[in-house]
């Protein structure tokens, strides 16, 4: 027993710390949980290296796998910034005077993201893009008092599962709209299916197939002022594509992972959530606002906390408390490092390289459905071979040729393969050569 503990127990008048648990009835005490003995740092390091050797990273392969999580370049400075102990090991800034550093950083995230999206209000983060959409639909119901919400029939099934859980308690029904012949939101269907119960609509650009949906420009006009237009974006595309704020979006959601967060087997991520100023009091989650201290000095504070669970309890807008604050700072660092010129250029590189791979694909005569539609950094590729055959060829080439669309997306023909192929700035000439070889064997 160390001296500190000895002193503490002496003060408490006991000799064995187990006496402090005498209030737990004997009948429910545990003698052992059956966990193994502890390890040293050096042992755990070796154990972890054993595990990582059982993984093959995207750096060891030619990866064209995206589908909601992207293999983008992560600048070294980001890891450095979010490893600063004062940020990393702090809690939610409940004492603002001693936490101005992280509060300024979160305000900057909200402000820089607001410029990128051209929206007035951004919260300091939600968990991921799926839960951001879930909260957005709940908010649309809350604003309009209406119970039906339109979503695209073609979107990630995972996202659909999350939002259907998020709306269950609110009584909102989800109704699906199809794509038109160009792989974009079917505006005629949407116009015909609006009724007095429609709370709003969700449209994403790029969408599940990577297509830049040009119809988003007309959505707000079609649904009208009284309904909520929720736009889904990939923030890394917004250096080159029109921001949702200029397209009439009422709420914007997106996945911040592309902005310097890395893959990490799917988490932590960053749920982006933005809206217009008139709805600021309906926003889920934490917001850091500009403020003044009692001497009039500029400061930052958690604002509108009466929306939140620790004040409003059952009547809170959302139950969220822990969020993804550190990931907001990572994406802020990314946006700061790239700036206007870098965000424009990263968009051009992603689009340009994707076009390059599409051109290569055309050379081999494989089918590119929706070929006339503009895409960001993903496209749909159709191969007339079985999945077993295609996967076998890819494996030999150390290639992940894309995401295989299955019957959950309506692709059930066993004699063809439909891939969503993602190209980023991290794909090298060798990756392109591998893809060429792959196409040569499957086309």
């Amino acid at each position, binding site marked *: 027993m160390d001296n500190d503990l000895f002193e503490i127990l002496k003060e408490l008048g006991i000799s064995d710390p187990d006496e402090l648990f005498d209030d737990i009835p004997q009948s429910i005490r545990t003698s052992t949980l059956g966990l193994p003995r*502890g390890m040293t740092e050096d042992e755990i390091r070796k154990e972890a290296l054993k595990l990582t050797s059982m993984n093959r990273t995207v750096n060891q392969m030619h990866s064209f796998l995206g589908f909601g999580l992207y293999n983008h370049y992560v600048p070294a400075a980001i890891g450095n910034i979010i490893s600063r102990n004062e940020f990393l090991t702090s809690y939610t800034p409940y004492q603002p005077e001693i936490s101005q550093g992280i509060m300024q950083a979160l305000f900057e995230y909200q402000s820089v993201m607001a410029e990128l999206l051209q929206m007035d209000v951004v919260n300091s983060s939600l968990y991921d893009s799926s839960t951001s959409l879930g909260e957005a639909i709940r908010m649309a119901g809350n604003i309009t008092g209406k119970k039906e919400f339109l979503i695209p029939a073609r979107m990630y099934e995972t996202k659909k*599962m999350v939002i259907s859980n998020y709306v269950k308690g609110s009584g909102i029904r989800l109704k699906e709209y199809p794509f038109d012949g160009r792989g974009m939101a079917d505006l005629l269907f949407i116009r015909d299916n609006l009724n007095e119960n429609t709370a709003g609509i969700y449209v994403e650009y790029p969408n599940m197939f990577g297509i830049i949906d040009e119809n988003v420009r007309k959505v707000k006009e079609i649904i009208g002022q009284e309904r909520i237009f929720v736009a889904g974006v990939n923030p890394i595309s917004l250096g080159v594509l029109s921001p949702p704020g200029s397209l009439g979006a009422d709420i914007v959601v997106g996945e911040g992972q592309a902005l310097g967060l890395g893959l990490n087997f799917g988490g932590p991520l960053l749920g982006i959530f933005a809206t217009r100023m008139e709805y600021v009091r309906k926003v889920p989650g934490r917001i850091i606002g500009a403020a003044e201290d009692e001497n009039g000095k500029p400061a930052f504070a958690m604002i509108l906390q009466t929306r939140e669970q620790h004040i409003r309890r059952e009547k809170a807008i959302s*139950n969220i408390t822990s969020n993804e604050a550190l990931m907001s700072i990572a994406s802020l660092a990314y946006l700061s490092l790239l700036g206007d010129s870098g965000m424009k250029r990263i968009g051009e590189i992603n689009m340009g390289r994707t076009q390059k791979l599409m051109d290569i694909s055309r050379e081999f005569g494989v089918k590119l459905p929706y070929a006339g539609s503009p895409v960001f950094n993903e496209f749909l590729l159709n191969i007339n071979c079985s999945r077993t055959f295609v996967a076998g060829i890819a494996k030999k080439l150390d290639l992940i040729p894309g995401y295989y669309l299955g019957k959950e997306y309506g692709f059930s023909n066993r004699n063809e393969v439909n891939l969503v192929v993602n190209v980023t700035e991290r794909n090298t000439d060798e990756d392109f050569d591998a893809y060429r070889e792959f196409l040569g064997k499957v086309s």
Partner: protein
Amino acid sequence: MYHQAVYDEPLIMNLKGRRTLKLPGEDEKLDPRIPESMARKGIGIGDREEFTVIRHFTRLSQMNFGVDTDFYPLGSCTMKYNPKINDEIASLEGFRYIHPYQDENDVQGALKLMYELTENLKKITGMDAVTLQPLAGAQGEFTGLSIVRAYFQDVGELDRRREVIVPDSAHGSNPASAAMAGFTAVEIPSNEDGTVNIEKFKEAVTDRTAAFMITNPNTLGIFEHNIVEMAEYAHSKGAFLYYDGANLNGIMTKTTPAKMGFDIVHLNLHKTFSTPHGGGGPGDGPVGVVERLKDYLPTPLITYDGKYHLNCNIPKTIGKVASFYGNFGVLVRAWTYIKMMGEDGLREACERAVANSNYMKKKMEKLMPVPGKSLKKHEFVASSHNDGLPKAMDIAKHLINNGVHAPTIYFPLIVPEALMIEPTESATKREMDKFIETVESAIKLDHATLEKEPTNLKITRINDVDASRNPRPTYRVQRSKEKI
């Protein structure tokens, strides 16, 4: 005397210069074919040098306070030390550069880690199955209650069972999660000693009850000794018992939620299992359930049959609550922590946390009342309500002015002028004594001086009323309001 760094640091978008960061493909000749109709003109965040960015964030970090700065006894938040090896392991390339949609064969190491973490959390909670998917404690609550909802829908009782019972001392997220999952929260009062009033509890539990949510030890740091009786009563009425794991550090290894009779448990990896909280997140909120609810867990679960699988074959699954499989970077850290601690280490952590808490309680009750039963677990609540004591807010500001983080204040709501103190195991006697001395000095200070604190930090107290009455959530909004 304590002084925090003070910079008049401009907002990052006002630090403009040239971009020094070079992108892959920076100089490549490419034809991006941006559609004219959707092409963007201008962004408005400016360019700057990498060194400008690093200096900016370094300065901001110096105006912040974490567990690594000093003692951080924030009640119910379990601000224990975050071992640095956790971060090193999580940053290994073999964990960072893998994609959740890769072939299972290529991510066996990641799946094995998740499987082992799941198994260890099962042992710690006594639950029969665990999902790692929920991304925070509150999402764990939502997941657990969604499972309850699915179960009662399945057995045809959902129309009737619309109520979730919570004690008035519960964390605010409990009733908020209940509402989000479509239930009505019913609050029941506590006894004088801070435990659940068992008569009121029995009156509240009926055939309309879906679940009873409680944290044990409760938010006053008291072990609810009637827990077995409450569990049996709730079960006899067909309701489930939900364990809010925020306070697990107070009983870990001494008993388990399963032994107490709970059916559903969420854990906060960023509290009990030492993963850093990052100024608000990321965390992770695994959920464990008993056998009867196993088939309702979110998809996929990790299973093992000589090989590790992402198993989507869960008969009555509620579907998903998050895009992928959980905050993997957080899971790696918690896996590391549990493996390094082992059972003995976890027991010692719990014992030390509880010893520290009782030590501080004994010192604090010489200064002000500490309501509830005498023996505490990991935390306790002091009340500076009477005897001309300073307000909880003033004591908190005096503490931060002297380089110690304040406790959680004004919570739980049932204690007036509450100071909720949780030292965790990561505190020395010297640090705890300094905290007590600092509270003592606040009591001795005249109110006028005290109310002007903090004076050693970047700013003094915030004008909160104006900040929310005139909300400026972004620089865009702030600028436009200044123009008017």
